[in-house]
């Protein structure tokens, strides 16, 4: 989860603020789990785009299914592995989002993120996994405008 504290608040004048919105200059992560940066294009003539930071994979899928938006880009930031290979966050660009079931976990429903290199990731830590049964495509990044992420090495 994302965490804000009183000192993080940005005092935007009421006339400029959205009703009921709170504005923040900084925040922290409370959980050592994967999180997502989602950019969508609502179907408007203005071609405005919206970027959200989302903590849970199910919220990513629910957000994409809730309204007819064009998925511009989706980046998954995964936590350190703590296995001696990396003590920093790693990331991968997502090409597709699927609803799926996991045969290794009693066929529990899950959300699968297919990365640009074709690998499938799921779970709290967005680990690469095989054998998942994809049941429904939630969204696919628009291929002509796919995200790129040159500065961060591929996740091992």
């Amino acid at each position, binding site marked *: *989860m*994302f*965490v*804000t*504290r*009183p000192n993080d608040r*940005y005092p*935007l004048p009421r006339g400029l603020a*959205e009703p*009921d*919105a*709170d*504005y*923040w*200059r*900084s*925040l*922290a*992560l*409370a959980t050592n789990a994967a999180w997502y*940066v989602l*950019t*969508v*294009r609502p179907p408007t003539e203005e*071609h*405005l*785009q*919206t*970027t*959200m*930071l*989302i*903590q*849970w994979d199910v*919220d990513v899928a629910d*957000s994409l299914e809730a309204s007819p938006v064009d998925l*511009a*880009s989706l*980046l998954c*930031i995964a936590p*350190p592995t*703590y296995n001696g290979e*990396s*003590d*920093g*966050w*790693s*990331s991968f*660009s997502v090409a597709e989002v699927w609803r799926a079931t996991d045969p290794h976990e009693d066929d529990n429903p899950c959300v699968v993120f297919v990365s640009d290199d074709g690998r499938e990731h799921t779970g709290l830590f967005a680990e690469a996994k095989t054998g998942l049964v994809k049941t429904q495509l939630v969204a696919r990044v628009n291929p002509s*405008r*796919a*995200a*790129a*992420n*040159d*500065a*961060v*090495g591929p*996740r*091992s």
Partner: protein
Amino acid sequence: MFFTFPSYEYVVPIEVKQPGEIRWRVMDMVGPGFFVATLSFPGDDHAAIRTMFFNWDSDLVHMIESPRIEAVLHSLHYVCPSDGREKPFETRAVRQIWRGVDRDADNCEVIIFKTTTDFEFCGQDAISVPHSVTQVALIATVPTKPACV
């Protein structure tokens, strides 16, 4: 800038959070990008590296330089989401932070970021460093490791 609406809140029992703290499932953002830093603080357990997000470079530097906080910076990235059209998603791994002055702007302070790919940018908008900016002092060197954000 990050912003939230009441429906974004993740409600947890008051016993498990600090006074004034609010937890969120979702954060909206506006602006060109944001900084993601991993930090630790004196007294933290070795494995307790914290991840923090900053809108403004000045807030980040204030955190790093504060003698009260004594934060140790472990990694720093600038994350620049896609504009939804031509500009792709981009992350920049920072290896050094410098303080500079801009002689064309009354010598105002400028924060300069040098990336692992030897690119330099400054400010929250991550613009290229103007020729009128002179580096003055190194603020921090960031340990850079492979495959980290």
